[in-house]
């Protein structure tokens, strides 16, 4: 059986598994006999990837079928500072797994999304996961926190998602409140207004926002960047999701 390498973001971990991505997604989200459950996001990593920080070969060696012949679901190789040590050249596909175990695979794109709206809402997924509003587009936001920080805060690598602000992106004071991932709407409005009135580019909305978020609120897609480069995994449109990935779309729209 083939052994796959997966870079999980919730929680951050490098895992060897004999399950293919869809099976691994279902297993990871809904659990087995341990009954651990929850949304999952992971990348498939080139199985030939090696780095001195990880003992990948040992992980692969231990990843053998169970006595009854069933494939080994997971061998955790590392659960600490994983993202910063994985080369983006080894990243293959991104998988978004719903709470009930439906898996959607996304390919990366050469082009970054077209910028729309004056204000942006970012959910950082790893290594930390605050909810942030910003006047910066995705590339500038990535550069600010990874490459050219203007404060003491700097991350070696980051994965974040741009979420839709709806009408608040253009009119934070009076814009109609749509489908948003944050409950305290007056506070969100206040943060957005401060971006306009104060000379700051970003404003933290919530320091301890859960790393999980409703997939239906994704605006453009998911970004993964380190010192070398920025990868973008565009989210298909709602229409395309409904037409081609109906089961996943239904579960993601819960």
């Amino acid at each position, binding site marked *: 059986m083939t052994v796959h390498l997966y870079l999980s973001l919730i929680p951050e971990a490098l895992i060897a598994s004999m399950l293919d991505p869809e099976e691994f997604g279902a297993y990871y989200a809904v659990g087995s006999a341990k009954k651990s459950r929850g949304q999952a996001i992971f990348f498939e990593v080139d199985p030939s990837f090696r780095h001195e920080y990880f003992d990948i070969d040992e992980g692969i060696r231990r990843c053998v079928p169970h006595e009854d012949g069933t494939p080994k679901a997971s061998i955790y190789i590392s659960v600490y500072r994983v993202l910063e040590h994985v080369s983006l050249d080894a990243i293959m596909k991104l998988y978004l797994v719903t*709470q009930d175990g439906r898996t959607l695979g996304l390919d990366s794109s050469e082009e970054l999304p077209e910028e729309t709206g004056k204000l942006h809402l970012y959910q950082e997924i790893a290594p930390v996961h605050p909810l942030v509003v910003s006047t910066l587009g995705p590339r500038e936001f990535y550069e600010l926190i990874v490459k050219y920080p203007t404060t003491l805060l700097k991350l070696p690598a980051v994965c974040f998602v741009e979420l839709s602000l709806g009408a608040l992106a253009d009119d934070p004071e009076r814009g109609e*409140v749509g489908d948003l991932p944050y409950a305290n709407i007056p506070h969100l409005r206040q943060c957005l207004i401060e971006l306009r009135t104060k000379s700051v580019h970003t404003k933290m909305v919530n320091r301890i926002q859960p790393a999980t978020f409703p997939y239906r609120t994704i605006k453009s897609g998911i970004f993964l960047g380190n010192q070398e480069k920025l990868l973008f995994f565009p989210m298909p449109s709602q229409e395309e999701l409904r037409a081609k990935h109906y089961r996943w779309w239904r579960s993601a729209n819960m």
Partner: protein
Amino acid sequence: MENFWLILALCSGLLSVGLAVWSYIWVNRQDPGTKEAQRVAAWIRRGAISYLRKLYSALIMVAVVLALIIAIVFGINAKDPYYGFKMAVAFVCGASLSALAGYMGMTIAVSANVRSATAAEKGLNPAFNLAFRAGSVMGLAMIGIAVTGMSTIYMLTRQPEIVLGFSFGASTLALLAKAGGGIYTKTADIAADLVGKVEIGIPEDDPRNPAVIADNVGDNVGDVAGMGADIFDSYVASSVAVMLLGISVPNVAEQVKYTVFPLVLCTLGIFASIIGLQLVRVGKDGKPGRALNSGTIITCLLFAAMVVAVVLLGGYNLGVLWAALAGLTAGVIIGFTTDYFTGDDKPPVVETARVSGSGSAINIITGFSYGLISIVPSIVGIVAATLVSYYLAESFGLSGVYGVGVSAVGMLAVSGMIVSADAYGPIVDNARGIAEMAGMSERVIDTADVLDAAGNTAKAITKGFAISAAALTVLALFAAYASEMEAEGVKVALSLRNPLVIAGIFLGAMTPPLFSALTMLSVTRNAFDMIEEIRRQFNTNPGILAGTAEPDYETCVALAAQGALTSLILPAFLAVVLPLIVGFVMGPEALGAFLGGAIFTGIIFALLMANAGGLWDNAKKYIESGMFGGKGSEAHKAGVVGDTVGDPFKDTAGPSLNTLITVMSLVSSLFAPVIAAFHLF
């Protein structure tokens, strides 16, 4: 002339049943779809049939006991030695024929759901036509069987009191079917949602949910069998009340003519419904809701025209014309105003959704308040219909209470159309569920969504209609009760200076809230048991959630059915025994006051619960459409709480109250001669 109308009534009833059977056969000949769709549909069908078996077994036991009591009580106290026997036979016929209508409606609904989903592959029109034609089986069977039963019994006995026994039989089944169906459907719905959606995070109608089949069965049990039995009950009860009041017509020579008149109205209603049903077509705009509404309006207009013609040509008093038209108009207006308070684009729903961002408490307060306001137009409609029909009947020399009874029959005469539109709802709802579970195409699901939205509106309109019709029916039954007492030489004068009357009012007013509480507590108790079962299945078999193992649907179906029927014992006992205790202990006036109190709080509670529940449901859906923070937001969480509170309001307690007050009024009228002879105070 009266014999002509009786024969025509019988023929129209048989014609209606014949058309229902024809549609039944036609629907069953349509394409049942793919193997997977048929497999899912078979689960639902088995669940529905298993519930019906349990329901009818319970009914047989209740019917046998009550028939024996009726035969003995009325056998001893009557001049005719066969009176008790005839009454008991009529009672059994009422219960059995109502059950037959329910059986036809349910079996066709669980057969049409998969066929409707399959027809949706071809487009909206074929799917709509199939689902609506299947719904019409319930509508046509219900009115046809009711009119056939009533006219046959009257032709054989010429005693409206015996038809009252028939009506009591229908009401007994209605009480079991409506309250039991309401408990069943919400037990399954709440349990499936709380574990499936909230705990596990799987979508609605997901085949991995062990309660998904019970939930789909519940739609049919509550909205086809339950609502059909409820309207069958009101339809028969209002007609019988007017037949009993026929003897109050001042001109003795015309008493038979006016005793038969409600059957004339029912006959015209059957013809209007049959024609109206043929004209329900989705237009070029592709809106099934508009097709259903137009069908209802056309049927009402046809019926009104027929009544005008028959009253003028048949030499009937013009008072009955105005009374019938007043009832019909009030029914239509009340039905459509219900939509204002529950429609998802109307201010009450939008406002409730908007304030939900402030939490569950505000959602509940706002929805409850709008529910209370929603009582106003219906009560005003009932009051207007009562006053107009009463005073116009009096002004034309008829008894005013006879006019009120005729307005109730006028409202219910188009039940064939109303029930058809109502039964269409669960068929398309199930069709959507089957499409989802069987993995049918996106096109089918889109079409089913459009059909389902129209079905929800039809359901809301039917609830308002059913409650208002029940209100007029029980007012007529109350008059019939007083008239029966007067025939025994007891005058029912309700004076608030009489402590027995005050005691009766309070006891009557207490009964609907108590009945509501008992049925809703049954839902929570049964839902708790089912939640434990669903959790057990997920925990013991991880393959269910992974999609590699099939859940045990049957256990959940059996739990829901058993729980619903067991929970019915105390509420049913209350409905039948409490009026008798009040009557035998406190006397006829206290019983009259008891009925008055029960009617007033019953109608108010029924309207409040049906409308507030519908409003909370749509407020949640409005938020889910992406408004006020969308799914997962604080507003949504509050909306889910409101919807869960509203579920047993609108589908269990609220609609069952119609039947409760009808049953209590019928028991009182039926036993009036005995109570008049034997009472303590």
